[in-house]
């Protein structure tokens, strides 16, 4: 077992560990006695799964990496309907995938308990959007908890299990990157005892959502929500914190924004309503708070979720109070907040002394070259995308892209990206482009993403007779999020679902498999495929180089070493200008050398180099 995971499992009640918010959530689930947990990996939620997967056997918990978030929610829902305690977690956009199940599950409710963690990503550190999933909780009429710190992530997750069990409805815990990926001291409690297996008691009036039952279900969820509102009114999760006198300025805040406000607590006058349970809102408590102040400042990340509710409430109860926040542009509606942006807003409003932001203003920065992420040296995705580009460079070819490490092939110099939307969309968008244009279309999708959301659009493309080439970049793992397994890989006695068989089963006749490092073979295959009618699938397969190297090191082996023969290098620069592996370095005289420290020894550059100036160093000299 990973030593960190072992520590999380073994910690005794009362002990304080330095935990990530995500690790705190995993520990809380173990303390709540969760029987079942499922996820599809996604930043910033992934570490919950890494921990639970690591400790599942020892803790007596059933853990599954699901094929996608919808299936994760459905299986976890089933566990709770059978009377067990279940946890399901995903990144914010994952809840979109699961939302079909979510909206109706709210009607049927659950037994046991079901806690849904959504990890939002303000600032798009590792995401295609920064949607605020608090709105999804309100949309689905589900209770919502917003922790501010790793310690609170622990407390609120544990509470969420009790809350869900009491209400008999799913409860959503919403974190953001700075909670999920903050590491702080967390005092842990005692571990719970999972029950293991259950027996499903039939109750079709509740669980079979025929229209007649669904109408009742809608009433039931609203009735349950009223119980939750009562709890929200009296819960210490929604609490008043006094600052200095005078107390006529109010601050309303939730989640990580609360911690940023606290940074200035000793310089601010007024009082704070700190909200941890934000759907349903404690309307009476809020109205009382609004009546007790002359102005109120709402501080929250992303959408004006609380701010709009506060303004509506003040209006409804005709409370004479000024409401400040995003409406006046004090705080941005896009990106993350931080202590500085909160301070800047408060200084503009005049509740915080300008001294608090004095140091922010006097920085003159030179323009520095940006450093966006790039594919690792030795990555098979680079080789395959390069081959596709080379094969089609004189043609008008569109490249719909998908979600994963390979999204990075959009960056120069390969630039093999025209549309990037969401999981599986490369094939759906590709089929659409094929239907409405005369341009050739070559879609890239990763293996895990293909299983997740690529199969239905592939069936669609075949059925519609789309002229579409799909390249499945198969690195045998879910690499971006931390190398989680997927259904195409055998693990722990679970059978693998064969990719080629699946593709053929979708009706694709033309399926070819190449090693992703085989640039020559792939180039020819891409050239053939794009001029061939119908759906063509090319699987470019090479195990994630990071995993290969890890295994090599474990075996005491080393990756091969390559070098440029200086006399042979014609300084054409092609290897960098077209392929751009980070290990290739242009020297001052325009010749190229290989940075041994960065090189992962894939050897693809040997094929890329036009004058064939790169060669493997014989092992005895390496």
């Amino acid at each position, binding site marked *: 077992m990973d030593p960190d995971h072992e520590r999380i499992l073994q910690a005794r009640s009362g002990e304080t560990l330095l935990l990530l918010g995500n690790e705190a959530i995993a520990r809380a689930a173990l303390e709540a006695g969760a029987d079942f947990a499922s996820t599809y990996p996604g930043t910033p939620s992934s570490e919950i799964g890494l921990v639970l997967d690591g400790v599942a056997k020892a803790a007596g918990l059933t853990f599954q990496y699901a094929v996608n978030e919808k299936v994760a929610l459905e299986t976890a829902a089933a566990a709770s309907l059978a009377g067990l305690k279940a946890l399901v977690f995903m990144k914010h956009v994952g809840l979109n995938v699961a939302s079909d199940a979510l909206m109706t599950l709210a009607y049927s409710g659950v037994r046991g308990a079901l806690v849904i963690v959504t990890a939002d990503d303000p600032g798009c550190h590792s995401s295609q959007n920064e949607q605020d999933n608090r709105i999804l909780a309100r949309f689905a009429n589900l209770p919502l908890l917003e922790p501010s710190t790793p310690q609170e992530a622990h407390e609120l997750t544990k509470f969420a299990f009790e809350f869900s069990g009491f209400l008999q409805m799913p409860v959503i815990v919403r974190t953001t990157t700075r909670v999920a990926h*903050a*590491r702080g*001291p967390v005092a842990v409690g005692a571990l719970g005892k999972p029950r293991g297996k259950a027996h499903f008691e039939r109750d079709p009036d509740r669980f079979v959502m025929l229209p007649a039952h669904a109408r009742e279900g809608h009433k039931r969820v609203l009735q349950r929500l009223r119980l939750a509102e009562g709890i929200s009114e009296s819960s210490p999760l929604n609490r008043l914190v006094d600052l200095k006198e005078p107390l006529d300025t109010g601050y309303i805040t939730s989640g990580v924004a609360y911690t*940023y406000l606290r940074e200035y607590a000793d310089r601010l006058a007024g009082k704070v309503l700190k909200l941890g349970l934000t759907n349903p809102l404690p309307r009476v408590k809020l109205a009382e708070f609004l009546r007790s102040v002359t102005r109120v400042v709402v501080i929250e990340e992303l959408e004006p979720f609380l701010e709009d509710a506060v303004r509506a409430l003040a209006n409804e109860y005709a409370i004479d109070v000024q409401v400040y926040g995003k409406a006046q542009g004090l705080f941005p509606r896009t990106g993350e907040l931080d202590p500085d942006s909160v301070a800047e807003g408060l200084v503009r409003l005049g509740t915080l002394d300008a001294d608090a932001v004095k140091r922010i203003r006097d920085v003159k920065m030179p323009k520095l*070259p940006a450093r966006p992420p790039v594919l690792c040296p030795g990555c098979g995705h680079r080789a395959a995308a390069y081959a596709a580009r080379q094969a089609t460079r004189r043609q008008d070819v569109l490249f719909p892209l998908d979600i994963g490490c390979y999204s990075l092939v959009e960056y120069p110099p390969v630039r093999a990206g025209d549309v990037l939307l969401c999981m599986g969309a490369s094939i759906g968008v590709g089929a659409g482009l094929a239907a409405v244009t005369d341009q050739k279309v070559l879609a890239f999708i990763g293996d895990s993403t293909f299983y997740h959301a690529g199969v239905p659009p592939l069936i669609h493309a075949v059925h519609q007779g789309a002229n579409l080439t799909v390249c499945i970049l198969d690195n045998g793992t879910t690499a971006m999020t931390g190398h989680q397994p997927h259904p195409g890989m055998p693990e722990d006695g679970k059978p693998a679902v064969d990719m080629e068989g699946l593709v053929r089963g979708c009706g694709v006749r033309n399926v070819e498999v190449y090693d992703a490092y085989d640039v020559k073979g792939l180039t020819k295959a891409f050239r053939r495929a794009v001029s061939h009618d119908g759906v063509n699938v090319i699987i470019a397969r090479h195990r994630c180089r990071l995993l290969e190297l890890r295994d090599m090191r474990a075996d005491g082996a080393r990756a091969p070493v390559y070098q440029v023969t200086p006399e042979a290098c014609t300084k054409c620069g092609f290897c960098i200008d077209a392929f751009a592996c980070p290990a290739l370095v242009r020297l001052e005289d325009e010749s190229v050398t290989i940075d041994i420290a960065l090189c992962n020894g894939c050897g693809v550059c040997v094929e890329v180099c036009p004058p064939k100036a790169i060669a493997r160093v014989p092992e005895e000299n390496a």
Partner: protein
Amino acid sequence: MKGASVLIGGVGGQGVILTARILAEAALALGLGAQMSEIHGMSQRYGSVVSSVRLGKAETPLVKRGEADAIVGFEPLETVRLLPWAYRKTVIVTSITPIRPLSVSLGQEAYPLLEDLHERLKDRAGRVIFIDADRIARSIGSEVVANSVLLGALIGTKALPIPLDSVRKTLVKHVPSKLAAPNLEALDIGYGVAIQDGYSIAFA
């Protein structure tokens, strides 16, 4: 104890998060409060990475601009990127080996002159220690211990209330056992570099 705020910046894959973790765990083991922030996912693929650590009482692991007591840079450009967080008393420890971003390799942008980067650091901060951490790491026989050289130097500046021994104890728990010895060696050398830095012969 008065708190301290530290920023550690570098290129994804250099060990920024692990180094921050060791610092935070060492502080926690001493009974100091400690929090840190990490960014996972896409940025770990050779992009700019920064992790913040706050010791003592703090509400958030994030460091306010102009309030970092110490900055550790694993790569010169990435060190300079953190300058908005420095002030006139900030202690900066930085590696001097550039890693060129892709835009520079492709000739779309130029890597700034190292002398200019160094001047900018010296202009703004209280004390700057430039360390050829990679060369020291190679001399130990393991390129991967360069971050321990820099961590050692940070501790050697005495900018933080954490003694070298505490970091040594924490470090061995967080690196593979095979790499414990070279990491400790790197830590000690880095510490020594910072102690001697700025003194001709005698040092305080």
